[in-house]
Structure formats: C-alpha cells, structure tokens
C-alpha cells in the first residue's frame, strides 16, 4: 500500500492513474490529456509530473516502456500495472466519498 500522501500529491497520483487507465501514454501526453479533460482548469506542472511518474513506477503502480510516439520519436510510455489498477479503483472511491462529503457540507451551509 502506498504511503498516505497529502491531498494535492494524492490528487495528482489519482489523475495520472486515471489518465493511464486506457492506452499507454508518455509524460507529455499525460499532461496534455489532463489539461484537455479539465478544460484547462488543471495545468500539471512538469516539476511535479515527472517526480510523480518515477515515484509511481518505483512503487510498482505503473510501468514504462520505450516506444515510438505519434510523431515517430522515441518516447517513454507509461501504463498501469495490475496493482496500479487496484490502487486507482480505491483512490477513485476515496475521492468520490471525499468530494461528496465536501459537497454536502457546502450545500448545507
């Protein structure tokens, strides 16, 4: 089990894992996808993205492989491991519970 991280780091992990739940992607692609999906609200800072990717890789939640990118260049593609998939499901549930709780508190005030 990964150590409990603070909300922000935990959130970034969740976003990365969610983004990788489909096809393998490289770092650039991940940052673009998050930005795109969040309609430019979430801009992932490279200074956080790459340490996070390497940490997740060391924890065995994702794995990396070198492959050819869409513009035919060598790029490092990340994809979820089985452990990563379980972690994603769990974190997603946690997040939804938390978000729901926050929403209820806000609605009640």
């Amino acid at each position: 089990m990964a150590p409990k991280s603070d909300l922000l780091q935990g959130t970034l992990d969740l976003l990365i894992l969610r983004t990788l739940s489909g096809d393998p992607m490289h770092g650039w692609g991940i940052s673009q996808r998050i930005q795109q999906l969040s309609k430019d609200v979430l801009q992932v800072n490279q200074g956080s993205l790459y340490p996070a990717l390497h940490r997740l890789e060391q924890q065995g939640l994702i794995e990396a492989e070198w492959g050819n990118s869409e513009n035919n260049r060598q790029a490092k593609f990340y994809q979820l491991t089985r452990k990563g998939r379980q972690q994603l499901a769990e974190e997603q549930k946690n997040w939804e519970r938390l978000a729901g709780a926050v929403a209820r508190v806000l609605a009640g005030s």
Partner: protein
Amino acid sequence: MSPVIRHLTVRLGSLFRRERLEQELDAELRYHIDMLVEQNVAAGMSPAAARREALRVFGTVDGVKDDVRDKWLSRFVEVAVQDIRYGMRSLRRNPGFALVIIVTMALGIGANTAIFSVVNGVLLRPLPYKDGDKLVVLHQGQGDALGANDQGFSPKEMDDYRQSRSLSDVVEFHNMFFTLLGRAEPERVSTGVVSANYFDVLGVKPIHGRTFVASDDAPGAPAVLVLSNGYWERSFGGDPGIVGKVFRMNDRPHMVVGVLPPVPQYPLEVDVYMPSSACPFRSNPKAIEQRQFRLLTAFARVKPEVTQDKAQADLDITFKQLQRTYKDDYPQGDDFHAVAVPLKTDLTSNFTSTLWILLGTAGFVLLIVCASIANLLLARMVRREREISLRAALGATRARLLRQLLTESLLLAVSGGVLGLVLSALSLQLLVSFAARYTPRAQEIGIDLNVLFFTLGVSVLTGLVFGSIPAFARRFDVASALRDGGTVTQSGQKMRSALIVAQVSASFMLLIAAGLTLRSLVTVQGINPGIRTENLVSWRADMSFDKFPLTMSPPERRAKVAAYWTEYEQRLRAIPGVLEVGGGGTFPLNEIDPFPQRLVREGHPLPPGRQPPQIDVRFATSEYFKTLGQPIVNGRAFAPSDTLTAPGVAIVNQSAAKQFWPGEDPVGTRIAGNGPGQFRTIVGVVTDVRQQLDRPPKAEVYVPVAQTVNIGMTWVVHSRLPIDDATRQIKAVSHAHDSDLPVSSFRTLAEVRSEGLAPRRVIVSLIGVFGLLALIITATGIAGVIAFSVNQRTHEFGIRVALGAQRSRVLGLVLREGLVLVSIGLAIGLAGAYMLTKVVGAVVFEQQSTAGLTLLIGTHPTDAATYIGVATTLVLVAIAACLMPARRAATVNPMVALRAQ
C-alpha cells in the same frame, strides 16, 4: 516477467543501471520540452522564441531532474555513500578523536562480545545432539537431589525407571579410571561405562567403525571399546586403522570397534567408552543385585509431546511404587526422591548465575562507553557549530543534518565493533579454558552467526544511542549560531554534565562489584585450609585390575591389595630426603567428590523410619595426618598395626564429633563397619580441613587404607627435595614397584591450592578489568569535559584574573565544577550499588548452593571498607582528571585571553 520481478528490477535497476537511467530521464524530459516548443511554434512563435518560452514554462531542467532522482532507490544509497564519504573526511581531519572513540567502543564491544560468545555457546545454543531439548538427566537423593545430595542410581533402579511412562529411553553412564596396556607405557584412561544404546539415544554416529550394539552388553560378551575423538587424535594421531586393534584392560582383551565424531561429551570428557558388561565393578553380581549400589548417572529421553512437568509427575509415580515395593531401601518420611532436569540446564547449573553477572558487568561497561562517546561527540558538535550552521543556511534540512551526524556515529560504532570483535576473538581461548572449569559445554564456545549478529546489533544500537544524544541535544538554531560567531551557547552543557554524572555512578557500581569480589578473593586466599601446603608433592597411582583379579577370593584379594600399598609406601619412605609419606583416596583441595556413606552410631538409635545421617568417608594411611600437618586433638592416629586382621578403627574430624557426638567423647565409641555385625572403634579425633578453600569443612570419618580395598590412591610426600627431583625419584620407585602401575597428575599441594582458586581469580580479574576500563573511560571523560568547559570560559577566567582573582581561586573554581558532578554521581552510584547488592546479592552472592560458586565469601555486600575505598579512589581519580585543565585555567594570561576575543 512476473510483476514482482519486474518491480524489483525497476527498483534495483536504479542502483545498477545508473547511466542508462540518466540518459532515459534526459530523453524523456527533452521530448517534453520539444513538444512544448512544437506547440509554441504551432501557435505562431519563431523557433527561437518558442524554445525560450518552452524552457521558461518548464522551469529549471536540473531542478526537475533532481526531484525525479529523489524518487529513485539509488538516491538513498547515494546519500548514504555521500554521508559516509563526508563522515570519513571529517574524521580523518581529526584522527586522534576518531581513534579515541573507536578504541573506547572496541573495548566496550569486545568485552560484551566475549562474554556473549560464552553465554551463547554455553546457555543459548541447542545441544549438539538429536532433539537435545528432550534429553534429561535423572537425579536421586535427598533435598534438591543435586550436587553432593545426588546419590545416583543402581543398575536395578535403572531398570525400574525405564518403566516410567514419559521416558522413551533411560541410559546409564559412570566414569572409571582403568589402565590400558599394550602400548609403550601403561596408560591411565578415563573411561565412560555406558549402556549399549547410549550413543543411539544421544544420536551420535561414529566416524569410524561402529558404536555399541545390544549384544556387546550381554554378560560374557567380548569386551569392546569406542574411542573419543580427542583421545584418538591425541594418542593415536587420528589413525583410522585403529578399529580392530586390541588392548589389555582389566585383565581382558578389549577390541576397539569405533571412533566418535568430535562432539562435546557429557557429562564429562572421557578417553574411551565401554559397555556396562565390560566394567568389572558394574558387572559384579553384587552390584547388579544390590538396590543401594548407586554409582550410575542416568540420562533419559522424554517422549515427544510430553512436557517437563508431566515427565516429573510420572517419575514421582514410579518412585512412589518403588517406595511401596522396597520399604527397606526407601524409608517413609525420608525426603529421598528422583528428579528429571533438562540436560541443557543440568550441564550449566553452576555457571549460569556467574555468566549473567559477567554479562551484566560488561553491559555496564558498554553504558559507560556510550555516555563517554556521546560526551566527546557533544563537545565536538560545539566545535562544528559553524560548519553545521553553514550547511543549514545553505539549505540542508534538519533531517538531512541528523542523518549526516548519525551516519558518522554509525561509522565510528561499526569500526569500533569490528575492532571489538577482533579483541574478543583473541581472548576466546582464555574464556574457553575458564568456562571449562564449570561446564562440559565450554568446547562449544566460539564466534558463530549469533555472536556476529549480536555484535553488529549492539554496535549499531550503541552508535544510534551515542549518536542521537548530541544530535538531538542541539536545536540547529541557524540564526543565533551564526550571529554568535561560533562561541558556545549553554546548549549541551547540561547534557554533558548529566552524562558525566551517569558515568561516575555506573563506574561506582562496577567498581563496588570489583572491590567486593576482590576483597572476597583475598579473604579466601588467606583462609587456612587446615593442612600445610609447603614442600608437599601429590600424585595419583592406580593399579591395573590384572594385578589382583576379582576372580580371587575376597579375603585373599583384600590382603594382597593391602600388602601392595604397604610395600609401595615403604619404598617411597626409603627415598633419601623424604620425610613423610601419606596416602588416601583423595586429598584436600583436590575437588574430587567425597564418598558419602550412612553413619550408624552405636548407642544412638534412630527414630523409626529414619535413615542414618550421611557422612563423607575418606581413607588414610598411618602417616597421612602427620604428612599433611593435621594434628590429632584427641586419641591417636592410625598405626601400622591397624591392619586387616586387627580390629576395625576409624578417626572422625572435629566437625563430625561436634555434630554427631554433642557433649560426648567419640573416642572409644563404635560405628557400623563394612558388613552386618562389623564395627569400627573410633580411636581419635583430628582437626577439620577444608576440602575446598571456599567451602566450610564438613563432617568426615577416616578409615585406614589397610582396612579397605583401594584400587587407586592419591599419595603425598613431604620432602626436602626439589619438586623435579622428588617427581623423578617417585616415578622411578613406582616403576620398580610395579612396571604396570601408571602414576600421573604430579602437583605440589601449593599448586593444587592455587588452582582451586583459579576460577574465582578469573571472575575477579574479569570484573576487575571491567571496573578498571570504566574508571579509565570515566576519568578521560571528566578530563575532557572539564577541559572543554575551561576552554569555553578562558575569557571569563581572563577577566577574573585581570580583576585580581587569586590563581588558587580559579583553580578551586574549576575543581569544584568537576567535584560537584562527581559527588552527584557518587550519591546516585551509592544508592544504585546498595539496591543492586540487595537484589542481585540475595540471588547470587550469598546463596550457598551445593554446586555453584559463591562469589562473596567472608565479605558482606555492604562492606564499608570497600565502599569507602572505591569512593575515595573515584574522587582522587576525578581530582587528578580535573587538575590538568584546572591548572591551565589558573595560568591563563589575562592579556592573551582577552585579546583572543
């Protein structure tokens, strides 16, 4: 590839594929930046502007890289390597400091490793036998049935206890000395006489030939021998062709059938083993018939799944049945009983408490070492204040600095530990020979994995303790440290004082232990054993069984044996320069177990159901008491006329007279003799002797050698000859008397006396060395702390002197600072020592156990002289330690001191 392995390669990969990882990281980030550039170009920027913008957005590439590397496992190792390298560099800059710490540490670790290796080999390791935990030793006797109370078992009883439900096997052992003939010299061999399945029960397989089989034990079977590994190596050079060789022993040919592997032998190391049918005593029909012919030690294997308590309960049941069946042999109301003790406990019972005491004292030394090193590091921290503050100012986090400091401490601790391991390995041989006096398991002492783990664990723990005290005592207050320009704050001074107090109190307790045991040793050494020990040579002479075989009629054999020794005595007396010649079964101070017998006194009827009391029986020739210088206080000594044909006589010692004939004169009264209706008249009372220096004299009765049958005897000669001359002449005379008579163990009684105290001396030396170590380390610590404090106060002293303070006042000021700490330490130590002797003393020091060694004899655990002596020594040493820095303080040149500011 399985996910686990893949995961592992990712993690470990960061350790070993460092270069490739760096390249990949570089490529990964470059790709990201290139994509940013492309995006910007697509948005309409010029390529140069697009790149500039991309790099601006991305941030510092090196910063990102560093953050990524932080996530790699290799990072941890890298930092550690870096810390170690940095630590080494800073220690190399100050080699004296490092050396002091490493040597101090090595002494502490060495002491603990050495003692632990003994504890490990003797107490912790499982017995090197198959399911050794299931092996028990049976004891039978009164009271605790152990030690001198243990009477052993008769062959009949062996069979009875085999019926006990919890025991799967009961095997016997007894030790005899026989003469082995057929080699160049007659050889006296220590022989283990055992059941045929003895080695099967222990699970020992021979390395050559075989061990015993059931048919070897049948009456009339050809006699066979199994050699112990040690004897085979020593006497036959490890010749595998020994199997099948035949030697003469006890008037019969004995064939060697096997050789044992080098396993430790319990209950004692012997040269050869023979099955019980081959032992002339054991196979004697009288021995087999008589229920009270108890000479055997019984080993048993407890059935699997049976607890120790259950085994004891079943043993009690068996004994109760014996008591019901044989009323004469086990009288009611006597607290005679049988106990089963695990073999592992039994072998070390008289050594365990001594060992724990030694380990405890070694632990104290380690505590003092810890405090001392912590103090040195604290002082050094103050000197490194600027360096550390600078590193903190440059961005090192507190955790990072702590890690660096702890790494340095661990480096010192592990170096000290390795050196300590070497020290203990060097002292191992000494410790083995020391332990061998207490337990047959001594041969198992060595440095094994347990010991290595212990040393590593203790070293690391010590390093963490002495490293974290200074590391946490400091607050890493960057701003103030830099502002003060590196002068000392008060921080750490209190901690240093507390450590000194702790060291002094621990040293005090250790020195009290050393002082008390030393005083006790001196007392014991001064004890008069009741015999003279000057110009006396003793030795053992054991005739061969061939000489007077048991096939002779008993009266004829008794007469021949008596005549044999009488002639031997006369030959010895004829040696020029020999003044007196005495012979007996054993000698005082010889540590040979006495031969206890029931004392039946004429005119002292016993209450019904009571067994007669036990008394130690010893044998003596007519000149025995004169030779040893034991005066006869009443009646007469034995005379040459007290022969087999003369009326039976005996002599009792003063203790026996007091105990069994209170208010009476025993001389002229009669006690029961060898057989029914036979009596011995007491003809004299002799002074008490201590059979062992540290045990009080016991009640004893002496019987003339000429009126008994002694196959082996100990002799002693009082002569004017130098010991070597005497020994040579005695050997020559013995050979002339009987060329098959082996004589051995030539020693002067002074040597015997000194050797008896050897274990006590070793323990006292060990505790003394530990105490001395503590004293030196503590003195160094005090000197260091006071010197440091003087250094810091140079400015203050300068002002004092400039304002007219007397030099002696300054000296007194510093001395007082040191002595206050020492006094507090002494007070705490006094309380601690008092409590320790209360707790430990109750268990160990005053216990009069039958087998164990009583550490304190003739010395009370709160002996005032020892306490005052130790306190005075500590104060004097402390003053000496303070004096050097104090003198420096007193001779401060105010001009220099003030200018230095």
